[in-house]
């Protein structure tokens, strides 16, 4: 097991990300996503580490782009749902966000 005799787990770290008065941005979520996809060791060979960081940078750009697309597309869905419900002013507000 990954712990000492006292049951303490010494090597993993759980992060907590929070926001105030808003949700997460695509950039913030993309960072988390990239961290799940690729982990780069500080001990890696410098050349490989540089290549991995470059790959991660390109991956991040792609993730951010498609997350923004997903947000826009979802807003379209919400806009249409609100319009269909007769909430046209609210629908316009959502579209302007």
């Amino acid at each position, binding site marked *: *097991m*990954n*712990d000492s005799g*006292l*049951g*303490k*787990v010494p*090597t*993993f*770290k*759980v*992060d*907590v*990300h*929070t*926001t*105030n*008065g*808003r*949700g*997460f941005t695509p950039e913030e979520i993309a960072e*988390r996503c990239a*961290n*799940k996809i690729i*982990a780069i060791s500080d001990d890696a060979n410098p050349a490989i580490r540089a290549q991995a960081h470059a790959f991660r940078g390109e991956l991040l750009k792609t993730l951010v782009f498609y997350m923004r697309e997903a947000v826009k597309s979802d807003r379209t869905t919400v806009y249409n749902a609100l319009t269909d419900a007769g909430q046209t002013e609210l629908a316009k507000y959502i579209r302007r966000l």
Partner: protein
Amino acid sequence: MAFSGNFMCTSFKKELLYGAHDFDASSGDTFKIALYTSSATLNAATTAYATTNEVSGTNYTAGGGTLTPVDPTSSGTTALLDFVDETWSSATITARGALIYNTTPNTTSISLTNPAVIVLDFGGDKTSTAGDFTVVFPTADASNAIIRIA
């Protein structure tokens, strides 16, 4: 005395030997994560979920959120497990730590109710105000995954 680090609960290790916990992503047990204030005392000796000093706040329900496990895997000689990050949306919460527990353990060989799995120490109070509160699990590899058997 509040939180003092991350712990794999001792009772959980014993229960593994009884076959009480199934982490299969599609047909396994239901695991939840409950948030606690800094007044809670959770450590390796914690055996089960309890409501004492559990967080209360907007869009947080007692008992916490249901986790989505990722199928257990292995890397080298280490077996490991991961969960999908858990988010409470539009929430106003302050929490110091959390408990992962099993709401549907296999009780064929041992009597259990909401047995504890792991205690998480956030290192300090974390607060969301009318926002999102997300617990981000570590990289699922042999060195960092949240549950590892080496």
